[in-house]
């Protein structure tokens, strides 16, 4: 059977005492394997996912599309990394290429130091994924049956992780529905079952595509708390792809932004927020007259002009140079500033700024 050797070696590895006890122990366990398999890119003991020069094209000839273009990326153990990008940016292809669901044309992927191309079954033995737009589990089975099934196929005897399943069900508010067929649950509950089944086997690395889709506000918020807790306490590494900027901003340590198959920004959330050179400023003054407002409209990108009596209130989105120029213009026209308010950019602003041309990497 294909992969039989790999499955066997995985089983032997998994049999090592305490191999799942703590993140530190897991890390120590892997060092021996990493010595054999790691390349320079994956050599760091803290790097759990290492991607080097990954490219994937679909089609051939002039109509070929480059979905992922020479992407290199590393994810540290216990980190929560957000993957953002507009539709068609290559996020899903990148994630599926890392997971082996799509075979890349070029590049390498190492999981915990193991080359995913050479030893896929061993490399992915500690990885699971929740993919958007898919059921991900079996709706005709109960919640608990799903957990047991997916623990087994991920290489773990389900009886031995029964306590883990009980705690997962408790934490995700699924305990009361443990013996209910998934098809009978609401959409949000189904999403939580998918997440629970991903965590059922004790994966070290999980890829979550739109994990909060269908969840109500409270469930989404507490899911974020749970993810942070799993990363901090259990050493779980999460790569999270979402269009929900609030989730990414709240949960992720680091954000990778993709556009047209390339990574165009890769930094901590704080650095991205602090590094934005876009300033939204609201200025109210009684000295704004028609001529000055017309002049300002010509020179600056005014998002809004609200007439007041006397004067007006303007909203401008400018970079640093633009801000200096705006202030100089107002100063030159003897404008007294009645009220000035700056609006702090959030991740969505940064995302729009970067994907519209700014580059941070």
């Amino acid at each position, binding site marked *: 059977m294909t992969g039989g050797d790999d499955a066997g070696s995985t089983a032997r590895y998994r049999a090592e005492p305490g191999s799942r006890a703590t993140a530190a122990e897991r890390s120590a366990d892997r060092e021996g394997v990493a010595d054999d398999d790691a390349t320079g890119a994956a050599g760091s003991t803290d790097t759990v996912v290492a991607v080097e020069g990954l490219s994937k094209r679909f089609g051939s000839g002039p109509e070929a599309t480059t979905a992922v273009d020479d992407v290199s990326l590393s994810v540290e153990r216990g980190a929560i990394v957000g993957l953002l990008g507009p539709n068609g940016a290559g996020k899903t292809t990148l994630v599926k290429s890392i997971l082996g669901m799509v075979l890349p044309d070029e590049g390498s992927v190492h999981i915990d130091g193991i080359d995913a191309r050479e030893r896929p079954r061993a490399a992915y033995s500690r990885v699971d994924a929740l993919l958007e737009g898919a059921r991900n589990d079996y709706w005709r089975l109960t919640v608990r049956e799903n957990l047991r099934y997916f623990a087994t196929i991920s290489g773990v005897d389900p009886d031995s992780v029964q*306590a883990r399943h009980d705690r997962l069900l408790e934490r995700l508010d699924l305990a009361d529905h443990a013996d209910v067929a998934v098809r009978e649950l609401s959409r949000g509950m189904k999403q939580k079952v998918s997440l629970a089944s991903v965590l059922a086997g004790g994966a070290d690395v999980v890829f979550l595509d739109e994990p909060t889709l269908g969840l109500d506000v409270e469930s989404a918020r507490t899911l974020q708390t749970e993810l942070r807790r799993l990363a901090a306490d259990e050493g779980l590494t999460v790569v999270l792809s979402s269009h929900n900027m609030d989730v990414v901003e709240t949960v992720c340590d680091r954000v990778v932004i993709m556009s047209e198959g390339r990574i165009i920004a890769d930094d901590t959330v704080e650095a991205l927020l602090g590094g934005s050179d876009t300033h939204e400023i609201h200025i109210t003054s009684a000295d704004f007259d028609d001529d000055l407002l017309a002049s300002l409209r010509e020179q600056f990108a005014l998002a809004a002009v609200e007439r007041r009596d006397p004067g007006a209130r303007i909203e401008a989105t400018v970079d640093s140079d633009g801000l200096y120029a705006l202030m100089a213009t107002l100063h030159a026209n003897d404008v007294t500033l009645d009220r000035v308010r700056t609006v702090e950019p959030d991740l969505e602003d940064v995302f729009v700024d970067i994907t519209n041309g700014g580059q941070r990497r």
Partner: protein
Amino acid sequence: MSDASLDGGDTSLDAGVTPRPATYADLAKQVLYREYLIFVRYPANAVGGIVISLFFFGLLFYGGEMVAGRALTDSLEGIIVGYFLWTLSVGAYSSISNDIGSEVQWGTLERHVMTPFGFAPVALLKGVAKLVRTFLTSAVILAVMLALTDTALQVPVLTVVVVAGLSIVSVLGLGFAAGGITVLYKQIGNWLNLLQFGFIVLISAPAFDLGWTRLLPLAHGSALLQRAMIDGTRLWEFGLLDLGLLVGVAAVYLGLGYVVFELATRRARRLGVLGDY
């Protein structure tokens, strides 16, 4: 979610947990148990299959009796055995090929691909479960057919199970291949279901007159099953060559089906359409 998750309760998910590695036996247990649960929880599918099969047999029997009269009743035993094998074949083929299509649609096939076991052993075990399930439903169909037509056949259980089982293993291989092709070309799945009507030709192939037809799926097994159920030939009374050929054909078609499935899923991964339904 529970308060424990919010107040930072001190219970780690894995506190006191010592995971043991799952073996292929554990995998088999889970896959077979899952198939069993679905079978007993949702009996409508099985009952529906039985009713439809009996409906068509009723049409064949009563319609044929009106048209052909005694000519039909003279060959009734052969028709019943052939129909029994056909229901077995269709059950095994469609359940495995449709099942693979469903796994693609649900996104669960993708999850299997990156597990230590992969999808192939899961699919093989599902195939075993489908065989058992199909045997149960086809046994009901056989019993009703015999009662309806007031016909007596010999049913040496061991011989019938082994011969019919090995016969439909080759069909299972075809189901694997069809499932693999469905993974690659999603729209083709329904058309491949038409292949099950080709099984009628294979089952009625004159296996002992044209030697090469023995190499086709079902044909040789169908001939042996006729001998077992009509003439009363027992398993150990068949020649070694006959039994060897039965096993060989089953193994070759199952192997070919498995290879086609593997190649198709690999190509689907290269094209990025593994889970793209």
